[in-house]
């Protein structure tokens, strides 16, 4: 399968190179949907320039990148475009390999469950076959590389691409089963932007499954493994943070990066939910609401972990979607990452109920973002409410997508164990409803 992947990679690289050379590059890199205060390229350049002038880049509220990014771009700043293209390619390749491995795991598990007669007799059409699963990795890579969101994110040189690469490597390491590498990349991902911390739970669940350790709270092996994993993760995180200290000999980066992510001081409009609320809020409520909004991101982990403990990779997908909806400075690059996973759940297509409205909402909102921005900022005939309405609709669309897939997944699982034709005790046909 290498050849088609190489072809896809070449096409993607060509598209990006063409866009880099065109005049659209400047326009795209200024769009607020693509670059946020956390990952804008301008800010990286500014931070490095400040460093050259002998000033800490974290003084002032310009630069919110981690020291490792400083280190990386200190040497690679002239080749920035190449770097971003390579990161995109790396992400796609990592996702490709991860999904290939995941397919094998799914297939093995399916075979096991069929052998164990856990499936109802009439669900033959729901079983995934290797034929249809063969092209899924390629589709995932395609979906990531040629997604307009990813292309725009790359052309804007937003460091979101680097975050995506780290998360992709984390997924690859987790699915391959290596706890050490998985904690390493998770620590890196958490270090870059705080929210991948929530991916700790699905990764742990997956690795537990892989080791055939039953997920019971009282079980000793469970606790031992959890402790090991947690300790590895914390050690890695600690090592990376301490190493960052030695770059600039100061702890300045902690309030500048993590304090900035958590306290949301910059209210530039973006595709997220934070800016509008905090722009109109009174000072004395803002602490409370910041806490509420931030808890919202981390809150869904435990219930989802309880519900999806048999299906950790789906849990990872849902968690990534939740991160990219509820994080403090989302961009379309974050959206592109979880959308790359959609081909993996192709078999859920027959259970999805809102595909038409979803696709309409997402496409129309993406097109309306620049229109309403122009109307608000340049023409002056709209105001922030218009733009926020589109932001809200876009996020509602994403939530609808996640919940749709969640429902479809659960429904399929139910049908697999209980058969396709559900009957009530008295024999009449029954409908499955999500309560």
């Amino acid at each position, binding site marked *: 399968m290498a050849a088609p992947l190489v072809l896809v990679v070449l096409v993607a690289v060509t598209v990006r190179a063409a866009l880099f050379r065109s005049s659209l590059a400047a326009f795209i890199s200024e769009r607020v949907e693509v670059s946020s205060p956390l990952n804008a390229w301008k800010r990286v350049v500014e931070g490095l320039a400040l*460093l*050259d*002038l*002998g000033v800490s880049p974290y003084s002032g509220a310009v630069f919110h990148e981690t020291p490792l990014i*400083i*280190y990386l771009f*200190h040497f690679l700043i002239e080749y920035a475009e190449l770097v971003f293209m390579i990161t995109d390619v790396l992400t796609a390749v990592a996702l490709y390999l991860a999904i290939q491995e995941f397919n094998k795991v799914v297939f093995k598990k399916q075979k096991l469950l069929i052998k164990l007669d856990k499936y109802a007799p009439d669900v033959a059409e729901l079983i995934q076959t290797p034929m249809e699963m063969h092209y899924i990795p390629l589709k995932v890579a395609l979906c990531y590389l040629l997604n307009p969101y990813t292309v725009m994110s790359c052309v804007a040189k937003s460091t979101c691409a680097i975050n995506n690469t780290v998360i992709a490597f984390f997924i690859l390491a987790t699915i391959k089963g*290596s706890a*050490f*590498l998985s904690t*390493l990349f998770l620590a890196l991902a958490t270090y870059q932007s705080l929210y991948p911390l929530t991916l700790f739970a699905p990764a742990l669940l997956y690795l537990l499954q892989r080791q055939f350790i039953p997920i019971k709270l009282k079980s000793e092996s469970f606790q031992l493994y959890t402790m090991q994993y947690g300790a590895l993760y914390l050690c890695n995180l600690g*090592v990376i943070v301490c*190493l960052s200290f*030695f*770059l600039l*000999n100061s702890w300045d980066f902690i309030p500048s990066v993590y304090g900035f992510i958590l306290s949301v001081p910059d209210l530039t409009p973006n595709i997220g939910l934070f800016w509008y609320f905090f722009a109109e809020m009174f000072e004395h409520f803002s602490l409370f609401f910041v806490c509420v909004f931030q808890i919202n991101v981390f809150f869904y982990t435990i219930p989802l972990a309880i519900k999806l403990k048999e299906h950790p990779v789906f849990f990872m997908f849902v968690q990534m979607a939740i991160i990219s909806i509820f994080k403090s400075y989302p961009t379309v690059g974050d959206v592109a990452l979880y959308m790359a996973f959609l081909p993996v759940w192709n078999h859920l297509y027959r259970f999805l109920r809102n595909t038409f409205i979803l696709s309409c909402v997402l496409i129309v909102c993406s097109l309306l973002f620049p229109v309403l921005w122009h109307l608000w900022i340049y023409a002056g005939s709209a105001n922030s409410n218009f733009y926020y309405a589109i932001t809200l609709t876009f996020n509602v669309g994403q939530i609808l997508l996640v919940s749709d897939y969640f429902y479809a997944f659960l429904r399929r699982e139910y049908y697999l164990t209980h058969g396709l034709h559900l009957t009530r005790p008295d024999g009449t046909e029954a409908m499955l409803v999500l309560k």
Partner: protein
Amino acid sequence: MAATESGASWVRAAATLLLGCCGAALTSSVQDQAEQFFRSGHTNNWAVLVCTSRFWFNYRHVANTLSVYRSVKRLGIPDSHIVLMLADDMACNPRNPKPATVFSHKNMELNVYGDDVEVDYRSYEVTVENFLRVLTGRIPPSTPRSKRLLSDDRSNILIYMTGHGGNGFLKFQDSEEITNVELADAFEQMWQKRRYNELLFIIDTCQGASMYERFYSPNIMALASSQVGEDSLSHQPDLAIGVHLMDRYTFYVLEFLEEIHPASQTNMNDLFQVCPKSLCVSTPGHRTDLFRRDPQSVLITDFFGSVRKVEITRETISLDRDIPGFESKLPKDELATEPLKYAEQLPVAQIIHQKPKQKDWHPPGGFILGLWALIIIVFFKAYGIKHMKHVF
């Protein structure tokens, strides 16, 4: 014959002496006149007349401004040098029983409107922002000349403001205010940009003296119609038109100005005496501490008129530098600074010979070492020691 010859020579000598004296006297009088020529220091006059109130019942403010406009025009300042700002149209107001007129005297004695009134800022254009932009010259490039105050450092400017005011502010258009601090800062900007030689500021509002309290720029003389805590009162209502036509202070100032003609030698001290408390009910105030010259020597026409001094003489006058009475207008410490020159806007030399950017910052050695050591450890941990032999 010798006596007459000596007598004649004596007479001739006396005559020459006399002629010489006369000539000397004449040249010295011409010299004096030449001195006088340069005494005031200004070469052109501007007037900024602002009425800040709208609505029909503020007729008197428009009438105030138009009266001053009329006097100033009569005394020689042309329309091109007058910026007239009227916040409302009284002449063509639907409530005006005598359309196209604005009277300043009851019984319709004096129509200050006429058909040669050139209003530069009318109606809603009279805002604090526009007023400050006019004063400081920070005007968008598309503004026409008639709306600009194109004064220079040899201009004497008369600024007359009227309307409703309070302690420290003047109300514009019933929706915004200009404060005395803003006004003082605007004048300081004008001074720093050398936009005036001398400035006469007259304000006819309630508590008008508060508006000139904060001035700190040199060469400003200020007059106000009332002190802080007092109200300026209006003069006479006209029963036919139905509103008060003028404010007291400006009424008496107008009366005073009607007697001035371009060659008057009346000075500022007389203007300070206009409208005593008995006539005006409020106490007019004035401020001259920032003004360099003695108000006694300041002519009314220095500000209210545009007097071009033209003297025809057949004498030759030598314009030597040290004409007495013409002291330098700049304070001594300002003279000590280096002459002004433009900062280099575009360092062409730097752009043409652009050196590659110096990377002044390098990551510390310990960091690089630590990072790469960690990367190697991770690599070998993940892939096993057996790969070592392939590396080495």
